[in-house]
Every structure is written in structure tokens, then in C-alpha cells.
């Protein structure tokens, strides 16, 4: 049998349902990895042995009774530590919430528990999801399993690393400006930023309410679709969650991409590492070989993405973090880390009297233009392919003292958040030992399409087999 840590969800699920392995065994093995690797990688803030094993025990009973279960039953998953988990500490990666224990579950956590998934732990992150490298955590940085001297990307750093290093089979994350796609690309895993409003945000500690998307990491594209099948759907608690019924995302996933029109936006292929550019274009060629057509397109307002994002996001952050006053929960505000403080100051300023028009209002207008670019492009093409990051995973400490440089790492990812469209990051090769990922972007609620394209490409390349040596 395969090494347990090399399994995909699909494979593990088959083993469980065919009773070749017990859920408790599987979960135990992953808990062991989680504990064993944490000193080196620091992917987890909290490891939940009891909760995970209790759930696994329950799954084993159900399987023994012949119950047909969701493919995620018994599957060890990690949850980014911004998701409220009832009775399990939730810190947002910050000392402010060091001892905070929620009295309720986030809707997505509830859905996963309902599907009998086993939460192995709360993963590390840039505090409050503020960051692109994983270095802003008050609980120490997470490291890239492919090169321990480098960043894994952020802010959902722990979740990406956990899946890459075999301490979970799937992990939940959030993507507000690239926080799933960037670590996915840096860690050789699949990461989905769904359409805004596809997955309920209720219970997830809010960063920027009009931009936050609830997504997840897996080793493979098929696995990713399995998770979306559980988390997507209407929610009575989130007023921005769509009532539009979700698809069955695994259905038709193996369909051919023949005839698909792929747009290559020129603005995303300037000012980046040439080798990365090369890998992405190679990937596109592979899809062409499979029958897709390629067309050059333009998303002209791309250059304003970062500026627009860094007005809207901090503005909303400053408001969303106002509740942390130490009265009903948590510690007092001086315990916020530097990045959080910086964003609160910036956001308070951009919303303040006399500046609102020039900043927030202006940004909301440019946002309409940026979305307009995508809407127009999708009249001509079915999907867009572009890089995730202009650089390879950088060294720990390289950008920490220059916030603006760190912000510019988001240059290719923020536009999808501003437009609300879904984007799937899939591995597309290595440069040296370092992973590279590409984005597959589609129109609103086209996740099914993205999975088809991703699956077709993955079948030819299987980059997930290149495991990190830890």
C-alpha cells in the first residue's frame, strides 16, 4: 500500500469504504505527522487529537454498520485558525485571541463535521490573514516544506504546508487578495479561491468583508472538487452567500477540454520572473495539445489592482477589527502585531472625513472597472490562465521590513478578489526545487469549468507526486 501520507482523499476514501483501513488508523497517522513536523514546519497552532479521534471513531462505527458516507468521512483536515470551531481555541494567529474559545462553529466547519471529516488541527497563518508570506504570525512563521529557508506563502500558510507535507489531506483557508492561491503555488498544492458568495463566510473571522472568500487546499484537483461539494451552498446566516444551487463538482470533471478558449492576459506576463513565465506558457501549450484554443487578451485595468485593493481591504479591516476591545473576549488592542496595526491605521485614514471620497469611494469605482475587464474578457474566452506570483518563494525575512514590497507580491491575485470571480491555483512545475503554480480563472460560479481544465492538465503532469523531503 502507498505511504499513508502520499494518499489523496479519493484514494483514502476508497480504502476506508472498502474497509482496508480504519478511520482511526488514518487519522492517527496524520496526527503523528502533525506533531512530528510541527517543530520544523510550524503548520499548526493547535492540534486536536481528541476531537479528531472521536470523530474517526464515530466514522468507523458508521462504516461498520454499512452506512454510505460522504467521501470526506474520516478524512483528516486542517482548518485555518480564523474559522470559529466550537470549543476549540481559535486565535487568528494573534496574541489578542490567544485564549479565545468560540461557542459556535463556522457554517463551513459545521458542514465538514456533518460530512464526518476529522479536524486534526487549527493551522498557522499570518495574523488576522494579513500577509503574503506566513511570517506575520504571532506564533512564529511557517516554513516551506520544499525549502525550509523559504516562505510558504500566506496568509493561509499552515493550511498549504499541512497538505503539502502530509499532515492533512485537505485544509481550509481564506483568500482575500491571494491568500490561498499564493501559498498553493509556493507549496505545490491545489488551492481554490471560489466565486465570492459561493461558500458561506459565517463564523470566519472577517478580514475584508467584500473580498473574503472561503476556499481550501488539496493535493489534487479531484480532491478539491470533493471538498467544494461539501462547503458550497446557501447559508441562512450569511447575507452575501448566493442562493444559486451549487453544482456537483466532480461530475464531468474528466471531460475533454477540446474547444475551450483560453485567454492569456498580456498584463500578467510582464514584470515577472522569466522562468515562471516560461512554465506557465508551457502549461498552456499542454492544454492546447489537448484541444484547447488560446487567445491573447487584455485586462487593461490590472495595473490599478494593488492600489485599489490596498484601499478597500484596509478600510474594511479597520472596521472589522474594531470589535477586538478586550471586553467580551480577547486581550486589549495594544497586543495587535505591527502589520495589523499598520492596516488599521491605513484603513481608518482612508475612511476618515475628508478622505473617504478620494480613497474608498474612488477605489469602489475602479473596482467596477476591474470587474468590467473580466466580464468583457469572458465574452470572448471561457477561462483565463496566468501566473500566481511574479517571483519564486522568497527567503524568510527578505520582505518583512518593506510592507509595500510585500503588498506588490499580490499583483496577479488581487484582481480576482476585486472582480469576485473564481480562481483555481494548480501546480505547474518546478524551477530548481521550488514549486510554481498557475491560476485558472473563470466567470462567476464556473468552478466546475475550472476543475475540468485543472484536471485535464494535472492528468498530463501529476506534479503532486513530487513530494517534499522533510
Amino acid at each position, binding site marked *: 500500500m502507498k505511504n499513508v501520507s502520499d494518499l489523496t482523499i479519493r484514494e483514502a476514501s476508497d480504502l476506508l469504504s472498502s474497509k482496508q483501513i480504519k478511520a482511526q488508523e488514518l487519522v492517527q497517522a496524520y496526527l503523528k505527522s502533525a506533531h512530528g513536523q510541527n517543530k520544523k514546519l510550524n503548520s499548526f497552532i493547535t492540534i486536536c487529537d481528541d476531537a479528531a479521534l472521536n470523530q474517526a471513531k464515530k466514522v468507523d462505527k458508521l462504516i461498520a454498520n454499512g452506512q454510505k458516507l460522504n467521501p470526506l468521512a474520516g478524512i483528516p483536515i486542517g482548518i485555518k485558525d480564523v474559522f470559529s470551531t466550537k470549543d476549540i481555541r481559535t486565535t487568528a494567529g494573534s496574541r489578542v485571541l490567544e485564549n479565545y474559545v468560540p461557542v459556535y462553529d463556522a457554517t463551513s466547519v459545521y458542514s465538514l463535521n456533518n460530512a464526518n471529516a476529522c479536524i486534526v488541527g487549527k493551522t498557522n497563518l499570518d495574523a488576522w490573514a494579513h500577509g503574503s508570506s506566513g511570517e506575520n504570525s504571532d506564533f512564529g512563521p511557517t516554513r516551506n516544506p520544499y525549502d525550509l529557508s523559504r516562505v510558504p506563502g500566506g496568509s493561509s500558510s499552515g493550511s498549504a504546508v499541512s497538505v503539502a507535507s502530509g499532515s492533512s489531506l485537505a485544509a481550509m483557508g481564506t483568500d482575500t487578495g491571494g491568500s490561498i492561491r499564493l501559498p498553493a503555488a509556493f507549496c505545490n498544492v491545489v488551492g481554490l479561491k471560489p466565486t465570492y458568495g459561493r461558500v458561506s463566510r459565517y463564523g470566519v473571522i472577517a478580514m475584508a468583508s467584500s473580498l473574503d472568500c472561503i476556499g481550501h487546499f488539496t493535493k489534487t484537483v479531484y480532491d478539491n472538487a470533493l471538498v467544494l461539494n461539501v462547503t458550497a451552498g446557501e447559508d441562512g446566516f450569511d*447575507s*452575501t452567500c448566493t442562493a444559486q444551487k451549487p453544482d456537483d463538482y466532480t461530475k464531468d470533471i474528466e471531460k475533454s477540454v477540446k474547444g475551450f478558449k483560453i485567454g492569456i492576459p498580456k498584463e500578467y506576463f510582464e514584470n515577472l520572473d522569466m522562468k515562471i513565465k516560461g512554465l506557465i506558457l508551457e502549461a498552456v501549450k499542454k492544454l492546447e495539445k489537448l484541444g484547447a484554443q488560446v487567445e491573447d487578451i487584455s485586462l487593461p485595468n490590472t495595473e490599478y489592482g494593488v492600489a485599489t485593493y490596498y484601499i478597500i481591504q484596509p478600510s474594511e479591516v479597520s472596521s472589522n477589527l474594531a470589535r477586538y476591545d478586550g471586553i467580551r473576549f480577547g486581550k486589549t488592542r*495594544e497586543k495587535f502585531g505591527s502589520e495589523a*496595526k499598520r492596516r488599521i491605521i491605513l484603513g481608518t485614514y482612508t475612511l476618515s472625513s475628508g478622505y473617504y471620497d478620494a480613497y474608498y469611494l474612488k477605489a469602489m*469605482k475602479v473596482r467596477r472597472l476591474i*470587474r468590467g475587464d473580466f466580464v468583457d474578457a469572458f465574452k470572448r474566452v471561457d477561462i483565463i490562465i496566468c501566473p500566481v506570483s511574479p517571483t519564486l518563494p522568497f527567503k524568510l525575512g527578505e520582505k518583512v521590513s518593506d510592507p509595500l514590497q510585500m503588498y506588490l507580491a499580490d499583483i496577479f491575485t488581487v484582481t480576482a478578489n476585486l472582480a469576485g470571480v473564481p480562481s483555481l491555483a494548480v501546480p505547474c512545475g518546478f524551477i530548481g526545487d521550488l514549486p510554481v503554480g498557475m491560476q485558472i480563472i473563470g466567470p462567476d460560479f464556473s468552478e466546475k469549468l475550472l476543475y475540468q481544465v485543472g484536471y485535464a492538465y494535472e492528468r498530463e503532469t501529476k506534479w503532486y507526486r513530487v513530494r517534499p523531503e522533510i
Partner: protein
Amino acid sequence: MKKIQKPEIDVDYVSKLANLPLSNKEKGLFEKQLKDVLSYIAKLNEIDTDKVEPNSHITDLANVTKGDKTFPSLSQDEALKNASKTYNGFFEVDAIFEEQ
């Protein structure tokens, strides 16, 4: 349409507005770092958005409401569970003075 003017923040004033205590060191550091960020953001002055409507909601959802039904609340214990200071079922803070 108001244009972004000089990229400077009175960090001291804004920190009071944001209820965020900062050390002098932090104030100095942020003033400089945010000046850089604001200079970059001024890029938006390049685009003419006079005839563009702001977009405050990216979905096309509207009229999302709930009926007037009640559901059980948290217990008092649950509500107070994470508070650092409570008293007889209340949250406790240092006295707020409003001259009376």
C-alpha cells in the same frame, strides 16, 4: 471628484480615532511606511472615474432579509465565557465617566 492629495498621515490623530495605542517608535515607523504605500496608491489619480458608479457589492444580490422569528439565545455562561472580567452576569470594564 476629489483627488488623492499629499500622501501623509497624521498617525497620532488616526490612532486615537482607531482606538489603537501606539508607541512613539511605532508612530514614526508607520508614518514613513504608510507614506510609501499612499504614494503608490496615488496611482489611482491616473484614471478618470467621473462617469463610473461605485461598486459596493460585487454580487447582484438584493433584498436579503429574514423573517421576524426568534430562536434560542446563548446562555449567560456562554455569552460571558471568554470575557476577562465579569460581575453578576455583566461584562465589567473600568468606570466610564460622563460628567453628570
